[in-house]
């Protein structure tokens, strides 16, 4: 099975279960019977698509369905009773809410992510450090303090005792990245994995102060109402796959760091 039909099927699963069933029937997979539904933070998209694909290859008759969204949306969906087997969030705060509600088992940290400066190709403004971003004439774009990446930016900047003069405080990290990719901004503060994901569109400039705000990604099994031990074992195998050497190598390739 190539990556293409898998990806198409994963997307379809998000749209409608019926569509997913229809497409699964067309795939080369011999009769997918068991399904593992994985809710994962959007920043894990590439990593989890690959891990899910490898897991399906290794486990005959198992279909992994990925639901990718912002961590707070994933938490809200699970709280509303969405049928998830595994949840992986981009921060411990979201996972803690699920733990407090008794909706998941004990979470385990499997990756971390930290901030990096993104600049357009060739680094026209010659940015080399966090201090370089304090130039008031620079077109600097950051996340608004209200969203997670902005909170991390604020923590790093106040920790270093610097003052930034951003021309825009964006809604999300992807908005910041877009402004850098199109060359509107001279620099932006995003996550290491965003720079890795953007490919040749941006260059990353790492800075030592980033250590002041490291994001930890936890993963946990969602507590099931019906006790199906076979299925629970399969779910645990998926969690192990994420934490295992192969999963960790994939995550490292995408810029994540082991906890």
């Amino acid at each position, binding site marked *: 099975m190539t990556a293409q039909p898998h990806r198409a099927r994963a997307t379809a699963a998000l749209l409608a279960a019926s569509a997913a069933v229809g497409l699964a029937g067309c795939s080369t997979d011999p009769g997918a019977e068991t399904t593992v539904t994985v809710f994962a933070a959007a920043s894990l998209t590439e990593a989890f698509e690959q891990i899910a694909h490898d897991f399906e290859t290794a486990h005959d008759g198992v279909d992994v369905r990925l639901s990718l969204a912002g961590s707070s949306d994933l938490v809200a969906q699970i709280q509303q009773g969405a049928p998830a087997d595994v949840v992986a969030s981009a921060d411990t705060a979201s996972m803690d809410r699920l733990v407090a509600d008794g909706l998941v088992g004990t979470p385990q940290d499997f990756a971390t992510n930290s901030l990096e400066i993104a600049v357009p190709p060739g680094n026209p403004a010659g940015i080399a450090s966090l201090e370089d971003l304090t130039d008031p004439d620079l077109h600097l774009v950051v996340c608004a303090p209200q969203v997670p990446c902005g909170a991390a930016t604020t923590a790093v900047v106040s920790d270093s005792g610097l003052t930034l003069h951003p021309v825009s*405080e964006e*809604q999300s990290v992807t*908005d910041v990245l877009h402004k850098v990719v199109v060359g509107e901004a001279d620099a932006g503060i995003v996550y290491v994995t965003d720079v890795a994901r953007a490919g040749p569109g941006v260059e990353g400039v790492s800075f030592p102060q980033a250590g002041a705000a490291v994001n930890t990604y936890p993963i946990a099994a969602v507590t099931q109402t019906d006790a199906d031990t076979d299925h629970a074992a399969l779910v645990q195998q998926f969690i192990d796959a994420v934490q295992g050497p192969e999963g960790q190598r994939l995550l490292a390739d995408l810029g994540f760091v082991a906890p």
Partner: protein
Amino acid sequence: MTTTRAPATSRRTTRDPAEVPAGLPRWAYVPAAAGGLFVLLPLVALGTRVDWAGYWSLVTSESSRAALALSLQTATTSTLLCLILGVPMALVLARGRFPGRDLLRSLVLVPLVLPPVVGGIALLSAFGRRGLLGESMEVLGLQVAFSTTAVVLAQSFVALPFLVVSLEGALRTAGERYDVVAASLGASPTTVLRRVTLPLVWPGLVSGTVLAFARALGEFGATITFAGSLQGVTRTLPLEVYLQRETDPDAAVALSLLLVAVAVAVIGLTHRRGASR
């Protein structure tokens, strides 16, 4: 709004208002009522979610006041820009005789059906620093990136078609008979436009202006893509609502209601003025 209009209509027609209107079957009231509920229910529901005790402090916070002031200022500027460009555009499209007019009309309406985010990307391609005109504008010392001007451009881009469509429709409905008579009596084209055409299409012009203002006030996607988001500079009320939603849902609801109130006030005021004309 409907109540102020109804008497004007019945005055013009000779039909007894008590009679069943000829073109209005009774069953139409059912889906019409459902449609009305569909529009009103979410607005009423929004009102029930408001934390009234803290409402005043929520909508008068520094960031809220900055967003409201910026929204009113940019939406007004955009509406003026739409009037300056849109009225002649509607005239040319309704009255002009040149090849390719129908195609041009369709193209002008594109922002109407375009997702605003796509509009924002298109504006970046034209006016961004690396855009088509970006470099020549930078040479002239004009920088629209991340400025209030960018907000006005984004709002005008999405609002202009609303004005053009409304006015062009009114111009077509009004026809050219009166214009021709006035011209035959010696009036110059500009006098005809000022004294005959525009008074004739006044309601169309007013509703087009209101629609353009409302669209500019609600603009979100093109603004966030093209102009960015900074308090007092580019963060308009819709952007502030979206951002507050992340951390303070109460404030987001309060600001949403404020936006609804501003929209209703604008529509109400202009309609009364338009009707009394």
